[in-house]
């Protein structure tokens, strides 16, 4: 198996490297990729959409359909992880371990596991992984609010600086994943319950598609944000700029919820009891 695979790979690679000789030189301004729509976007994008960051303008306005379905693809990946992994039965729960918060003594509970007791002075421990490190916990506790603030900045400032819904949503989701890693999955689930991120995923996609449908209702094309001008106020360019922002917020919510959803399911094998 290895030798035929190596031969196939080397043949493909050799053909591609041979073909690369005809490619335009690196960073050549007259390369074909720079000739067709790209100059139009660069020269008219800021004036037509009010977003000086052309990547944002193309992403959410000129290529709005593409981005809408990319968001739907990400959401469906979250749904697939949920459908493949999520189980509700707790058949492998034979004992639970608790630690006293003050004296650090651990106890094992082996009876009455269907409704485990919740005690103020005890905290539940994972069976395999019990993070106790004070520095990691407090370091992450200090960092996470700033990470989330930065994520909101990246989403909201996507018009004028590198950023937008995808990047900000991933940073926001990563802050919750950091919480789940540095504490444990249950702590993260207390902050963001399964129900909440399960609802926020489709809400993100719905904000995007709903904005498009609203443009349709106002007598314009799907995702043509200029039609929102009577609702938002201002001229068509401002309406496009605000439409991009609304759509980016939808993308950010959807991506954040999906990242958390995938992480929770994959790390706990769908049981939502113990994380990594």
């Amino acid at each position, binding site marked *: *198996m*290895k030798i035929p*695979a*190596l031969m196939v*790979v080397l043949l493909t*690679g050799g053909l*591609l*490297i041979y073909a*690369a000789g005809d*490619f335009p*030189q*690196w*960073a*050549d*301004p007259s*390369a074909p*990729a*720079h000739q067709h*729509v*790209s*100059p139009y*976007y*660069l*020269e008219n*994008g*800021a*004036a037509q959409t009010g977003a*000086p*960051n*052309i*990547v944002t303008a*193309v*992403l959410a306005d000129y*290529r709005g359909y593409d*981005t809408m379905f*990319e968001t739907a*693809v*990400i959401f469906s*990946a*979250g749904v*697939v*992880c949920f459908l*493949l*992994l999520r189980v509700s039965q707790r058949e492998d729960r034979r004992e639970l371990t608790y630690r006293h918060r003050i004296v650090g003594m651990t106890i094992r509970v082996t009876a009455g596991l269907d409704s485990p007791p919740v005690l103020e002075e005890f905290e539940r421990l994972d069976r395999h992984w019990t993070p106790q490190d004070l520095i990691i916990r407090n370091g992450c506790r200090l960092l996470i609010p700033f990470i989330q603030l930065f994520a909101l900045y990246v989403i909201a400032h996507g018009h*004028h*600086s*590198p950023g*937008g819904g*995808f*990047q900000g949503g*991933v940073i926001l989701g990563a802050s919750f994943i950091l919480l789940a890693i540095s504490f444990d999955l249950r702590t993260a689930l207390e902050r963001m319950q399964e129900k909440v991120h399960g609802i926020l995923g489709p809400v993100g996609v719905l904000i995007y598609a709903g904005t498009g449908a609203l443009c349709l209702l106002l007598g314009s094309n799907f995702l043509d944000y200029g039609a929102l001008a009577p609702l938002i106020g201002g001229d068509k360019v401002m309406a496009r700029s605000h439409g991009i922002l609304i759509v980016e917020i939808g993308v950010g919510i959807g*991506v954040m919820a*999906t*990242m958390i959803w*995938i*992480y929770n*399911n*994959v790390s706990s*094998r*769908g049981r939502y009891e113990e994380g990594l």
Partner: protein
Amino acid sequence: MSDLISGITAHYNYWIYVILMMIGLYAMIAKNNLVKKIIGMNVFQTAIILFYVSIGAKKGATIPIIHHGHGDAGASSIVQAMDYINPLPHVLMLTAIVVSVSTLGVALALGIRLYDRYETLEEDEILARLREK
């Protein structure tokens, strides 16, 4: 000789992506462990992303954020496409990166399900277990 050197310096970035892509493709075809196959898939995706981003480069150009000042003075100036790199590959790869994370999640979820059923992630052992039945 100088032709050869200029040919190498103008195209060696493509060769790097092709080599990265071949590493990923080889891992996907030849490796026996499913996690290694998933890693190979991600290496492959990274090569494609690097290839697209390098297509967007232009000599002497800056990032595609139009230089703008406050008020009318900045907004009304004429934009030259030569001064900014191509935004289109960046847009395409922006979504592709997040989609690659999602496909990684789905692949890992499938791997977990396979491990639950066959208690191994080695491809030949899974195939042997399938033939037994």
